[in-house]
């Protein structure tokens, strides 16, 4: 699954570009992929020392409400909150995409993972054939939020909903991510691919999955 993250400001904000967020408070749910996507977007627009963030709830609806109240200048949202923010008049000043990466316990075997990959691959094909049919899942996740429940399938920008058939993790991308996180002090030590990726299990699982899917 490819995740879309968007830097969002309130309708009343004077901010129109990510560069204008230099020195402005941006709320991030530290420890989650969306927060790191936010850091990447900010870092791409300004010197690192100008990036100003604070810890915020993982609840995207609460972060959106806080932006609308003016508690902070911006936050990073995912769907369906990006769509809801736009309906509320908020502006997207930057957006990006990133892979959701599966992290597995060493006990996971290739055969079980291959079965998982085959099912997910078939689901990706079904969704990509008719994304609009499946956007209801984004609404279903938040049954108690009236704003989300009021969203209609046609409200969603399907370009923000991207799915890719699963594949092995490219080592260079894993290395870049590790080194970038280390540069922020989020992790320490040198990157060691053999410690991060069990290639034996991963490659065998993808071989098994591909063989069946091709049959």
């Amino acid at each position: 699954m490819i995740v879309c993250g968007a830097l969002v400001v309130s309708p009343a904000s004077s901010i129109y570009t990510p560069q204008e967020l230099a020195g402005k408070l941006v709320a991030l749910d530290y420890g989650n992929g969306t927060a790191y996507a936010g850091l990447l977007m900010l870092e791409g627009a300004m010197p690192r020392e100008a990036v100003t963030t604070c810890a915020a709830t993982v609840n995207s609806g609460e972060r959106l409400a806080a932006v609308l109240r003016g508690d902070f200048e911006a936050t990073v949202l995912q769907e369906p909150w990006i769509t809801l923010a736009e309906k509320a008049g908020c502006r997207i000043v930057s957006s990006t995409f990133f892979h959701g990466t599966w992290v597995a316990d060493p006990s996971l075997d290739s055969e079980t993972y291959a079965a998982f990959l085959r099912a997910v691959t078939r689901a990706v094909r079904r969704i990509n054939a008719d994304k609009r049919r499946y956007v209801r899942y984004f609404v279903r996740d938040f049954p108690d939020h009236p704003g989300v429940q009021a969203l209609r399938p046609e409200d969603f920008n399907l370009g923000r909903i991207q799915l890719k058939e699963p594949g092995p993790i490219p080592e260079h991308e894993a290395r870049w991510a590790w080194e970038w996180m280390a540069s922020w002090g989020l992790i320490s030590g040198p990157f060691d691919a053999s410690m991060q990726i069990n290639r034996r299990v991963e490659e065998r699982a993808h071989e098994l999955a591909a063989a069946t899917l091709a049959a």
Partner: protein
Amino acid sequence: MASMTMTIERVMAFNGLDVLVARDEGLFAEEGLDLRIVTLPPGEMRSTADGTLTRPLTNQGRLVDRGDAVMFQG
């Protein structure tokens, strides 16, 4: 009849639409996989608002760490 079982941490549509559709449309079952999705009890959830950039308080991976799931999406 499923011959394999796999337990993963909760996903939502934004990061796991493919998994949720595969589950709901029986694609895991067709593969002989009994996929179970588990969630931390509300009382055990930590707030990311109490963390810091370099010492975040995330809930991702906690069920894997204690052996109640084998995979999570990071």
